C-alpha cells in the first residue's frame, strides 16, 4: 500500500507544485483530491508499519549495524560490477538498510510537513519550527525530490535483483524462486 500511495502522492504533488498535464491530472481539484486521499492511506499505513516494526522489533533488521558497514564495500563492489559473485545476506543487504533507514527518517518529515500544509491554520505552531509556511513548502518539496530519487533506485534495484522482490513492493507478498 505504501508504494502505490507514494507514487500517487508524488505525481499529484508534482502537479500541485507545477501544474501540468504531464503528471496525469486534468485540474488542480482532481490532483488535490488524489493527493489528499492518498495521504491518508500513506499516513495510516506508515504508522501501522512503524508500529509493527516496534512491536516485533523488526526495526533491528531495517537500520544498518556495524556488520552492515563492514559488509558495505563487498556489496558496492558487486553492484559496480567489480565482483561477479553476489554476496548473501539474511534478509536485507546493506544498501537496502541504508535506504530504509533514510526512508524511516524522511517519511515522518514528509508526513509532518504535509500535515502543516494541509491544516495551515490548526498546525501553525509547527510551521514556526521551519521559520514559516513557505519554508515548510520548500522542505516538503525537497523531501519529495530526495524520496522520489530513493524510491526510483529502490524499484530499479529490486528489478535487477529479483522480479519477485519487485512484485513484493506492490503486493506485500514475497515468494522466492
Amino acid at each position, binding site marked *: *500500500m505504501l508504494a502505490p500511495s507514494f507514487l500517487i502522492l508524488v505525481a499529484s504533488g508534482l502537479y500541485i*507544485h*507545477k*501544474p501540468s498535464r504531464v503528471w496525469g*491530472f*486534468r*485540474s*488542480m*481539484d482532481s490532483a*488535490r483530491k488524489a493527493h489528499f486521499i492518498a495521504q491518508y492511506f500513506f499516513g495510516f499505513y506508515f504508522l*501501522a*508499519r512503524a508500529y*509493527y*516494526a516496534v512491536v516485533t522489533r*523488526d526495526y533491528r533488521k531495517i537500520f544498518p549495524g556495524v556488520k552492515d558497514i563492514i559488509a558495505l564495500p563487498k556489496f558496492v563492489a558487486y*553492484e559496480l*560490477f567489480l565482483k561477479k559473485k553476489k554476496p548473501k545476506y539474511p534478509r536485507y543487504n546493506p544498501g537496502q538498510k541504508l535506504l530504509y533507514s533514510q526512508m524511516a527518517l524522511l517519511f515522518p518529515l514528509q508526513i509532518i510537513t504535509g500535515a502543516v500544509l494541509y491544516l*495551515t*491554520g490548526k498546525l*501553525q*505552531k509547527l*510551521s*514556526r519550527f521551519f*521559520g*514559516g*509556511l*513557505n*519554508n*515548510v*513548502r*520548500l522542505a516538503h*518539496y*525537497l523531501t519529495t*525530490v*530526495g524520496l*522520489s*530519487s530513493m524510491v*526510483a*533506485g529502490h524499484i*530499479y534495484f529490486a*528489478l*535487477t*535483483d*529479483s*522480479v*519477485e522482490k*519487485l512484485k*513484493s513492493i506492490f*503486493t*506485500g*507478498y*514475497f*515468494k*522466492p*524462486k
Partner: protein
Amino acid sequence: MISRNKFSRVFQKHGSHSGVTARLGTSLLSKGKRNRLPVIWLGTNTCAGDSISLLNSLDPGYRAIISDLIDLRYYHFGMPAEGDKSTGVLEDTLAERPGEYVLIVEGTIPTRSNGLYCVIGNRRGKPFTALDAVQELGAAARYVVAVGTCASFGGPYAAHPNPSDGKAVHKVLDRQVINVPGCPAHPDWIVGTLAHLVWYGEPELDEYNRPTLFYGETIHNLCQRRHYFDSGIFSAHPGEPWCMYKAGCKGPVTFADCPYRQWNGEHLNWPVKANTPCIGCVSPEFPDHTEPFFEHLPDIHLPQVTVNANRVGAVTGVLTAIGIGGHLVASIIKGRLPKTLKKGFSPAKPGIEILQTTPAQILVDSIKKMLKKKR
C-alpha cells in the same frame, strides 16, 4: 459601547465597505475621548511605508484617530518638533505614564555597534539609539505593537546580508509583542489593532502574535480567483487575468485578508486583482525566503552558492536517471538483468514452496484466519 464580537465581525466581514468603519468608529470614539491611550510611534530602520499607510486611513481618518481614539505623543514621521523637544516627550511619557502607554515600533532594530546604525536623537549629549529607546520604552509600556514586517519579523531591513544586524522588535524585548506585519501594513490592520487595544485590550493572536482578526485565514482561501485555481486555469505571466499560482503567488502560504479588505483607505484593489502575484509580505520569511517573487519556491542559499529549488529537483532527477540508466546498461551488457528476468518469469519449480513473511502478508493472513474462525 458595542460588544467585542460585533466589533470583530464588523472589522472582519465588512472591512471593504467604506462607511462601516466610520459608523463603528463614531459609536466608539464618542465614548472614550477623555481616556485616550497615550501612544508613542517610534520609527527605527524603516522606509516609513507604514506611517504613510496610516495616513491613508479614511474611516476613521488620521485626524479622528489622533483626536478621538489615541493620544499620539510622539510620531517621528508627522511631528514638527525636533531635538530635545521631541526626545523630551519620550522621557516625560516614560516618567508620567508608565504601564499606560502603547509603544508602536516601525522598522527593524539595528544591533551592530551597540545600535549606532539607527539614532533617533540625542540624550544628555549622547546618541539615543533605537535599540536603547525600544528596550527602555518597551519595558514600561502597557502594550508593544510592531507595525510592518520589518518590526514584526525583520523584513527587508534585516534581509541578507543584513549589515546592521537588524532584528525584529520581539528579539530585542523580553515581553509580549503584538505583530501587525505587512509591507506596508494595511491602515485597517493598524487602526483596528489600536482600536481593539483601546476598547477591549489584547486581541486574539495567532502563533506569530498576529491578530487573527486580520491574519486568521490564508489569502488563497479568500481569493476571488480561487475557482480558477481549482479548475487549473493559471496565468503563465503577471498581467494575465487568471489564477497567479504558476506566476509564483504566495497566497497559499500567506495569512492576511487582502482579498476582501483591499487597498488602501478606499479599499479599491490588491495585488492579485491588479494581475500580479501575492509576494507574501506579511510572512515571517519575507523577503529572503519568498524570493524570487515570481517563482513557486524560494531560492536555497548555500555557502557561496544560491540555487533555485526547481533546479535542485531537476538536477536530482537527471542524476538519478543517469545512475539508474548507467547501471541498467551495465547490467544488460554483463548479463545480470537477462538472468534475473529469465529466473523471474520462469515457471515455479515443483516442490515445497517456502514463503517469506512480510508485514502486509502477516496482516492479511491474520484477517483471513479471523474470518475463517467466524464462519
